[in-house]
């Protein structure tokens, strides 16, 4: 089975996020970068499928030079080769723009399966994987926590709300977006890093994959969430205060 895993490099979780002066992106000066966590789970799923069924795992990532470190990490963990779509303007592309790049890079490989995280930790749009499926004309399923290869195709387990799961079957080739936590991630090893140096990383420039096109969505402004502490002391005796509390929990906090 030939599996492509689309991976995004995002700011490290502890990164000090500062808004850039244009108010449309974040200041990248002091940032450390890491593999998007749901993508790490997508990679893990791909590696386990390969270990069970044989085949090849190809890592695909779009972004500037710095993305190379995340690609090497994926190769170190066991991916066989990589495609790096070089593009410096990923931040100004919308989900459709990013998906177009990925889909164009995927097409010539004719994979059996495309995996990606269900969403990115930085923008959290949750659309890229689904749009890639649409652009490739492939069936897809989202929020996957378990994948099993069958003779007919795949059996997958989706996470729904409130502890419910959905089990579905779908044919190959297909696109799946993977939820975090379905598997246990493997750690990077020294041997993996050394072996990764010898693996192929094919660089493709974004321009070669077609014109960027005008974004469907444009970003107007971003801001840091403001912290608000609003402690209210409810007056009255215990009975009145309790009644007022229930009222507020029901209609203001909407947790009851």
């Amino acid at each position: 089975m030939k599996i492509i895993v689309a991976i995004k490099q995002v700011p490290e979780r502890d990164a000090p996020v500062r808004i850039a002066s244009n108010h449309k992106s974040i200041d990248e000066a002091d940032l450390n970068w890491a593999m998007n966590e749901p993508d790490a789970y997508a990679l893990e799923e791909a590696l386990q499928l390969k270990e069970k069924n044989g085949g090849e795992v190809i890592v695909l990532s779009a972004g500037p030079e710095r993305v190379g470190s995340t690609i090497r990490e994926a190769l170190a963990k066991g991916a066989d080769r990589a495609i790096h779509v070089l593009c410096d303007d990923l931040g100004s592309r919308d989900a459709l723009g990013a998906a177009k790049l990925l889909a164009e890079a995927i097409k010539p490989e004719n994979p059996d399966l495309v995996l990606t995280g269900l969403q990115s930790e930085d923008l959290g749009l949750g659309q890229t994987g689904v749009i890639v499926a649409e652009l490739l004309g492939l069936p897809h399923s989202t929020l996957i926590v378990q994948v099993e290869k069958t003779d007919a195709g795949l059996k997958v387990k989706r996470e729904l709300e409130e502890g419910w799961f959905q089990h579905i079957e779908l044919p190959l080739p297909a696109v799946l977006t993977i939820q975090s936590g379905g598997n246990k991630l493997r750690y990077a090893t020294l041997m993996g890093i050394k072996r990764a140096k010898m693996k192929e990383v094919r660089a493709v420039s974004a321009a070669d994959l077609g014109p960027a096109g005008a974004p469907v969505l444009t970003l107007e402004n971003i801001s840091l969430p403001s912290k608000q502490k609003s402690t209210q002391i409810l007056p009255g005796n215990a009975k009145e205060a309790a009644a007022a509390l229930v009222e507020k929990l029901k209609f203001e906090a909407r947790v009851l």
Partner: protein
Amino acid sequence: MCASLPTLAEPNHFSLLERFLFLALAAASAYGFWRRFGPIFNKILHSKKDPGFSLAPIGRRVGDFVWEVVLQARVISQRPLAGIAHALVFWAFCAFALVTLNHCAAALGLGFLSPEGWAGQFYFYFAAIFAVACAIGILGLFIRRFVIRPKWLGKTSPESGVIAMLIFALMATYLAAFYVPGSGFAGQALWWAHTLVLLAFLPLIPHTKHLHLLLSPFTIFLSRGSFSNIPPLSGDEDFGLVTGRDLTQIVSLQAYSCVECGRCTEHCPANNTGKELNPKEIVLGVRAYLNDLGPQSEQPLLGKYNSQKAAFECTTCGACEFQCPVGIEHLPILVGLRRGAVNTGEWEDSHGAKLFLALERGSNALGLPATERDKFIEKNALPIYDGTQEYCLWLGCMGAYDPRGREIVVSLVQVMRHLGVTFGVLRKEKCTGDPVRRLGNDLLFQQLAESNLEALAQSKTKKILSICPHCVRTIQEDWKEFGTPPEVEHHSEFLARHLPELNRVSGHDLSHAENTEKSVGALAPAAPTKEKIVFHDPCYLGRYRNVYDQPRDVVASAGELVEAPRHRERSFCCGAGGGLAFLGEETGERVSHVRAAELVATGATTVAAACPFCNTMFRDALAAQGNNAPQLVDIAQLAARNLPRESN
């Protein structure tokens, strides 16, 4: 010499037949010896060269050799009775070198020591004293091994009985020769008896653990030179001890030097609490591998010959390495086996993977967001280190994120502020890499060490102070592979140095403070109400750093110091080291519970620790001791508690 003393019968007339017989037997004996020893010698020689090994400084090596081999100091200090018996045998062997050489040369008419001559007479008596001592020593060791049978010796082999009898026979035949006429049948017969025993002994040496008498002087001389010295990896294909090809000459030499005395196992916290790990068997496992497969084999070291599970039960407390009488360095072997398993991804452990991922993606071993550290710094108004302050206060994972660890830091900060010592903390700090270093994850360790070294260089740090012996050790020794770490000190050393000032202000009388500086043991209890405090030596402060007195000084100035049965160099681990604090449930008893019970049994009302990992282990273990469990403090808290309030 006094004429009334008997003279040694040393025959000097041998017939041609006798000479021929002697030469033939000597050749057979030498052949028997080399047939077994040759392959061992070749296996050691053809093992991999040790990366990073250097003979310099030679002075230290000579010093160690004199202390440990010639004077037998380690053998004696760690097991006095058996050690002295062993030393008597060893010294006798040395004294006998000349006697034996002369004994053999005599058969060929080349004897150089005459029993009639002044020098010969002197030397034969000199050797006779040693012969008596040796006979007593070997008898004692024989009784110990076959009658008393300490359990750490393991299964007693019949060969050691045979060897003991041969040694005894050598001494008996030598001494008997003083009581027979100078020439004649009896003298000749004794000469032959002595010779035959000697020639039988030689080929037995490489067949048994007595090989140590040939190898261990070299093992001790060629040691890596410092405690738990983890060698650097060499080249792109070195991942630690994976197969026979990774066994270095030093490891092979050490494996063949093991005398199977079991001291390592006797002191091993894992083995003493019912776990599979047995440090002696680890060494013997490597030896068995070399015997069966040799140093060129591609077979894995972990599996048939050594167990991966056992290798990962080690707390790296170093009790084994510390007291090994033949210079075996267990920690580089154990950590080496772990490196082999982790660097190749063979080790699968959900807790271990969680720790590694936490440090791949984040900054600390506890897996908490770095903002938690920022909040702690802000809340306690800790200044940021800017190169002008005296100390860079290294918080470490425990000091920055663990509630108990934070309390220790706050106490130390209180003391420093009181003393007017300037300090600052780094804006960003990552785990020193101690747990991943000990667990054998070289990739992560290198990343953490390099990132920290860079941050420290940028901040122009000259001196680091830390509450954690693990941080101190890792920064000072293990980081050296990747750069030059700043000077680093544990807070016990800092506190002990400032004790006179602290005691003066907290109302202690000065003479008392001076007392504590000189000697802890001699400290007279000043007040009848003094609190009894038992101090637990952290492995990474004691055995790893050789700091024993400073924390005791701090304790003694706060109360009455009491000692646990196992203390100082013999301290028993809390169970946290070697990354084990982050791994799952232990099999058997918990190391921390065994140690806590020992501390409680001293009758102390307070347990003083000097390591945040020991602290966290004992917090739970003491709680399990019931309601009367002593309170648990760090020495920094002892130092801070009598300070005037305004310095808070």
